[in-house]
C-alpha cells in the first residue's frame, strides 16, 4: 500500500524548476533513501510532501489526501528540516516538553535514552548548539516521535562517526519494533546504503532512479582489466563510466546477464558490484551531460566522465 502518491508535481521558484514534473509513489513501512546532490530538489520535495510549501502544479496525496493545511494528514508526519528554525528563546529541553503535544506516538522514555546517548545538552540555548548537536536534536525528535511518515533531512550533518552509527542502529532497531515509512535524504550515500530498502535519486528536480535498493545494486557492474580487454568487452554496450590508468582500465556497465559475466571472466576481466554511491554519481553525471548536449546522449556522457576522472 502506498502512503504517498505524487503525480506530475512541479515547483517553480521564479525561473528555477526545483521540482520538475515528478511522478512517484512511496510504499508503506519501508525505509526510502532520497539521494541527490546539493540543490537537486530533495528538501523542496519534502517541503511539498509536508505541506510546508505549495506546489506550482501537479497533485500530492499523503495518506489519501492533499497535505496542505490538512491537520488529519499532518499529525501523522514528522519532518525536522536540516535548516529547522527554533523559537528565539528555546533550549533543547523546550523542544522535548512540547513534542508530546503534537506527536501522539511520542515516546518520552526513548527520547530521554537518546538524549543521553547523543550527549545532547538540554539546558543550552538552541542558538548556541553546535551543528552536530543541532542534528542530534532533529534526529531524536524524528526517532522518538514515531510518526507513521518520518522524514530525515540530512540527519547527520556535523555528527561524529559514533553518533552516526548510533543513529543507524537506533533507527533500525526502532523501525523493527515500530514499522513506519521513513524517508532519509542524504548525500552521504555509502554509509546508508545497507539501511535503504528503496532508493530515489533526484537531480535538477527530476527523478533519475526510483527502484528497489537490491535491484539497483545489481543493476550495474564494474569490469576491470587491461585497457584493451575492457574496450573489447564494452564495445556495443552502454558504458556508465570509464576510468583508465596507463594500460589498465575499468568500466561501469549496466546490468550484465550470466552469459555476459562468463564472457567477461573468459576475457580475463575482474567483475565487482558497484556501490550505490558510485552508481548515483555516474547516473547524475550522465544525466547532466545528457541535458548539456541533449541529442548526443550516452556516448558523449561517457567520454566527459572519463576525462573528468582521469584528471
Amino acid at each position: 500500500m502506498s502512503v504517498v502518491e505524487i503525480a506530475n508535481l512541479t515547483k517553480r521558484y521564479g525561473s528555477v524548476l526545483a521540482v520538475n514534473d515528478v511522478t512517484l509513489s512511496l510504499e508503506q513501512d519501508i525505509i526510502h533513501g532520497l539521494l541527490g546532490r546539493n540543490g537537486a530538489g530533495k528538501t523542496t520535495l519534502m517541503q511539498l510532501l509536508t505541506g510546508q510549501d505549495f506546489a506550482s502544479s501537479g497533485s500530492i496525496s499523503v495518506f489519501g489526501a492533499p497535505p496542505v493545511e490538512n491537520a488529519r494528514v499532518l499529525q501523522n508526519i514528522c519532518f525536522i528540516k536540516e535548516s529547522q528554525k527554533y523559537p528565539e528563546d528555546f533550549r533543547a529541553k523546550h523542544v522535548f516538553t512540547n513534542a508530546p503535544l503534537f506527536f501522539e506516538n511520542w515516546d518520552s522514555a526513548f527520547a530521554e535514552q537518546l538524549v543521553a546517548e547523543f550527549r545532547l545538552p538540554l539546558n543550552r540555548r538552541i542558538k548556541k548548539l553546535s551543528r552536530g548537536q543541532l542534528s542530534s536534536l532533529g534526529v531524536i525528535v524524528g526517532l522518538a516521535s514515531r510518526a507513521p511518515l518520518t522524514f530525515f533531512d540530512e540527519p547527520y550533518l556535523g555528527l561524529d562517526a559514533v553518533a552516526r552509527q548510533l543513529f543507524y542502529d537506533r533507527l533500525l532497531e526502532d523501525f523493527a519494533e515500530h514499522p513506519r515509512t521513513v524517508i532519509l535524504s542524504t548525500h552521504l550515500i555509502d554509509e546508508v546504503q545497507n539501511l535503504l530498502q528503496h532508493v530515489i535519486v533526484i537531480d535538477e528536480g527530476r527523478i533519475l532512479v526510483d527502484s528497489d535498493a537490491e535491484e539497483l545494486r545489481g543493476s550495474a557492474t564494474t569490469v576491470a582489466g587491461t585497457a584493451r580487454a575492457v574496450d573489447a568487452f564494452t564495445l556495443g554496450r552502454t558504458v556508465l563510466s570509464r576510468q583508465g590508468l596507463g594500460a589498465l582500465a575499468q568500466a561501469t556497465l549496466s546490468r550484465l546477464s550470466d552469459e555476459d559475466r562468463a564472457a567477461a571472466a573468459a576475457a580475463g576481466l575482474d567483475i565487482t558490484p558497484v556501490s550505490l554511491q558510485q552508481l548515483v554519481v555516474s547516473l547524475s553525471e550522465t544525466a547532466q551531460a545528457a541535458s548539456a548536449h541533449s541529442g548526443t546522449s550516452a556516448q558523449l556522457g561517457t567520454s566527459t566522465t572519463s576525462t573528468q576522472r582521469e584528471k
Partner: protein
Amino acid sequence: MTTLAADQPATARVASSAPRAINVLRLHLTNKWTTLGTPLLILTFIFAVNYVIWLLIYTSTPEAARTAAGGNQYVEGTQYSGSTFYIFIYMLVIAIQVVLRTFPFALGFSITRRDFYLGTALLFGVLAAIYSVILTIMSYIEEATTGWGLGGHMFSTVWFGTGSLGQRLSSEFFAFLFFFFVGAAISTVYLRWRATGMIVLWGSIVLIGVAAAALITFANGWPAVGTWFLNAGVYGVVLWSLVITVISAFFGFRILRRATPVN
C-alpha cells in the same frame, strides 16, 4: 474570530483542531520569561525609577506648597506619564517575533497554519487580558494611595487608568490587541513576501501617510483633525483602533495561510 473560522469550508475540522490551537498556545507559553517575566521585571524597574523621581520632587517641594489648597499641583505633569507605553511596544515586538520565529518551528511540528494562527490569537488574547488586569489593578492602587503617597502618576494617567472599571480594562485590552495584531500582520507580510514585502509595505505606509498629510493641509483640515481627536477622546481613539486591529487580524490570517517557512 468567528469570521476567520467561517473561512474554512470543512466544519468537522474546526472541532477537531480546537485542541491543537490550545496546544499552540501552550507552545507559545513554554518560556514564560519572554512573555511575562521580563516585561513585568522591566515594568517594576520603571516604577522604581519613577518612584525615586517622585520622591525627589516631593522632598524638594516646600511643605506649605504640598499642603496648600488644590494640593498636589507640583506633580501635575506626571499625569502625562508615558511610562507604561514601553509595555505596549514590547508586546508589538513579541508579536513580531512569535510569528517570525515560532511559525517555521510550528510547521516543523506538523501544525497547520490555521491552528498556528488561532493559537497565536489565543496567546494575544490571554496576554492582553493579563496585562490589562495588572495595569488596571495598579491604577486603582495608585488612586487609593494618592499616587503612592507622593502624588505621582504612572498607571492612572491622561491616557489610561481613569474612568469606570470597564473603561480602564477595555481601553488597555483593546490597545494591547492593536499592537499584537499589527505586529503579527507585519511578520506575516515578511514570511510571505520576504524583503520585497517589507519594502512594498513600508513604502505604501509612507506614501499613504504623506498623501493624507498633503490632502489635509491643502484642504486646511488640520483644525478639523484636531477637533476630531479631542471629541473622540483617548477612549474613542482606542475604540477606533479596533478597526485597524480587525483588519490586521483578518489580513494577517489570510496572508499566513499562504506563507512558507524562512530557510
